């Protein structure tokens, strides 16, 4: 790994709205430059996407952008990011996605010109490669439409580029359900890291060619899925915590390859990435309850630079369209943080403390997100020589933190959960730091019909 030293090593400096390497956008947002902005996410209501519905699809996105920006303006917003995460059809036929970017960008431009409201679009094509099973991560024909969308979509107004790439998911899907932490290491730290190196080189290239911003990746299919499963009580929370911590090592590869932030919202690696690299991040918590329930509602915002709702359908609530309502909710959350920042470090730190204390001991996934623990774990995440070593060290440190909180009585967990702690520790410790050794160890126990090693350069 490229990083040997934390950019932020004092928990007090890990604070919402402030990143050592803020990102300036064409319309003048300064993400991480002293205030937090809302990042609104949205999707279609129940409907299909085809020639017959395409006009209606476009109408939905126009309505979403218009409603959200009008509301942001009415609430005297300082600026907004709209994340456009494409659905299958919009990437497969890139023109559909490009047209939607253009429709929304025209509306952004209107609000910018007429009212000075700075709004940027984050364009997040979905990773088509998972449609082929086993996936052809490097040689798939589906990379073509994906990158056509990155390229032309960014020119059409997608100023921030992101993806939730799925390299390694072929292995993680079942590893998650079996709580197989070694499988998760293999999925994320071997396959995931290699795929991130491959895909992010290409994304950064597009960004540089078009003068756009390469944002970041997030381990949605891994860490977010783990959280959702834990919230459903399908897998232990302590296991989901491990997945979250090791996902940092996967997602940081985007930054190594040239991404400059803002990181994406739904993997929760953000705080660690910010400490290690200094880039601004996006996070989601209570105000993403429209998209999934979560045990980190408040603490997730402790050091974020964008505050996101993850996703909501364009359906009607009693007040109006749901994305408009969520825009309002995000703006008020963000106002609170910004007013604290305006008052100065003391107020901001106190608000941060309250946000942290609110959740910290209610769930191990919250525990590792307190800025103090983020710094502690981040230090370990860069200590070793290999990605695997780093992930191991980080995960073991997180285990220590959990055990300390249990021992001190500050956190309580049922026996069903604590029973996993020694198993996890033993499994993690058994992982060799050397990649080829690890691959050799894992191949016999994995179902090799699910993935193709050569598609990861192995």
């Amino acid at each position: 790994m490229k990083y040997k030293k934390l950019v932020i090593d004092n928990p007090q400096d890990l604070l919402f709205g402030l990143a050592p390497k803020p990102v300036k956008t064409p319309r003048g947002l300064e993400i991480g430059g002293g205030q937090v902005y809302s990042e609104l996410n949205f999707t279609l209501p129940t409907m299909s996407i085809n020639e017959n519905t395409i006009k209606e699809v476009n109408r939905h996105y126009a309505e979403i952008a218009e409603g959200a920006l009008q509301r942001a303006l009415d609430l005297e917003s300082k600026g907004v990011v709209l994340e456009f995460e494409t659905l299958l059809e919009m990437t497969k036929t890139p023109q559909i996605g490009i047209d939607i970017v253009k429709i929304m960008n025209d509306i952004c431009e209107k609000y910018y010109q007429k009212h000075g409201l700075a709004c940027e679009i984050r364009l997040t094509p979905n990773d088509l490669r998972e449609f082929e099973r086993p996936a052809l991560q490097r040689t798939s024909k589906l990379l073509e439409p994906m990158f056509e969308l990155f390229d032309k979509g960014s020119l059409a107004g997608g100023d921030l580029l992101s993806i939730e790439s799925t390299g390694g998911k072929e292995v993680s899907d079942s590893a998650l359900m079996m709580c197989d932490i070694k499988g998760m290491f293999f999925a994320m730290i071997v396959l995931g890291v290699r795929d991130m190196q491959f895909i992010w080189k290409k994304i950064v290239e597009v960004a540089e060619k078009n003068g756009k911003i390469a944002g970041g990746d997030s381990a949605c299919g891994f860490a977010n899925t783990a959280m959702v499963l834990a919230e459903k009580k399908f897998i232990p929370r302590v296991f989901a915590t491990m997945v979250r911590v090791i996902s940092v090592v996967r997602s940081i590869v985007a930054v190594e390859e040239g991404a400059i932030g803002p990181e994406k919202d739904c993997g929760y690696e953000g705080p660690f990435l910010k400490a290690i690299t200094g880039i601004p991040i996006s996070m989601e918590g209570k105000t993403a309850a429209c998209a999934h329930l979560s045990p980190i509602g408040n603490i997730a915002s402790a050091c974020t630079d964008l505050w996101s709702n993850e996703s909501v359908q364009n359906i009607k609530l009693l007040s109006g369209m749901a994305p408009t309502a969520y825009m309002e909710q995000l703006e008020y959350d963000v106002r609170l943080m910004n007013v604290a920042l305006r008052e100065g470090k003391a107020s901001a730190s106190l608000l941060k403390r309250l946000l942290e204390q609110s959740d910290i001991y209610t769930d191990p996934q919250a525990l590792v997100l307190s800025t103090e623990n983020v710094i502690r774990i981040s230090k370990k995440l860069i200590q070793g020589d290999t990605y695997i070593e780093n992930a191991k060290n980080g995960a073991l440190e997180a285990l220590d933190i959990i055990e300390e909180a249990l021992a001190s009585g500050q956190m309580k967990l049922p026996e069903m959960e604590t029973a996993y702690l020694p198993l996890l520790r033993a499994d993690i410790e058994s992982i060799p730091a050397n990649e080829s050794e690890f691959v050799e160890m894992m191949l016999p126990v994995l179902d090799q019909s699910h993935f193709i090693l050569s598609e990861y350069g192995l």
Partner: protein
Amino acid sequence: MSDLLLKLAEAVEFGKVDKNAPYPPQLKGQDGASELTQQALEEGALPSAILQDALIPAMDKVGQKFSENKIFVPQMLLAAKAMGAAMFHLKPFFQSGDIKSKGTFIMGTVKGDLHDIGKNLVTMMIEGSGWTVIDLGVDVPSTKFIETIKANPGAVVGMSALLTTTMTSMQDIVADVRKEFPDIKIIIGGAPITHDFCKQIHADFYSPDPQGAVKYLKELAA
């Protein structure tokens, strides 16, 4: 019930696949579901009794514990694996007609949709309750459902969808299937699905969780 069947039920409940299996630690070195089934058969237990008195009650218990949040999915998966190991030895008796499956359940995630974690859980629990399950995987078009139903007359069909945009694909598939098999039972599920949607697309049953599906199928088979 014989001691042996009790032991077999325990092996399935706690996910002991075979003697060599490391899980669960407390049964280390003991016989697993595989060995115990073989022994029961050798001792002359009726295959149908093994199924009805040991395997299915054990899986019921597992399902119950899961519903009550007393175990996590991995424990359930191990139990399913142990059940599978036992079933391996009972398979010949299905073919010979000595035991009857409760029926065939055909399951898939609909066209355009790749989410299968939920679907996999559902198939597993339905399998554990004594149905023969055919899993069509993800991104499954109408044609594949129809083909499979043709090859398995009388089967019940299950569909999963996780995206608002593939809910309409589910609607189309239900309509296509209905056209060919007007009386077939179709059950649906997935995070965005609701009772109302089920009615609207003329599916027969919706459940927010696998347990509901198992219950519904139990009533169907009764």
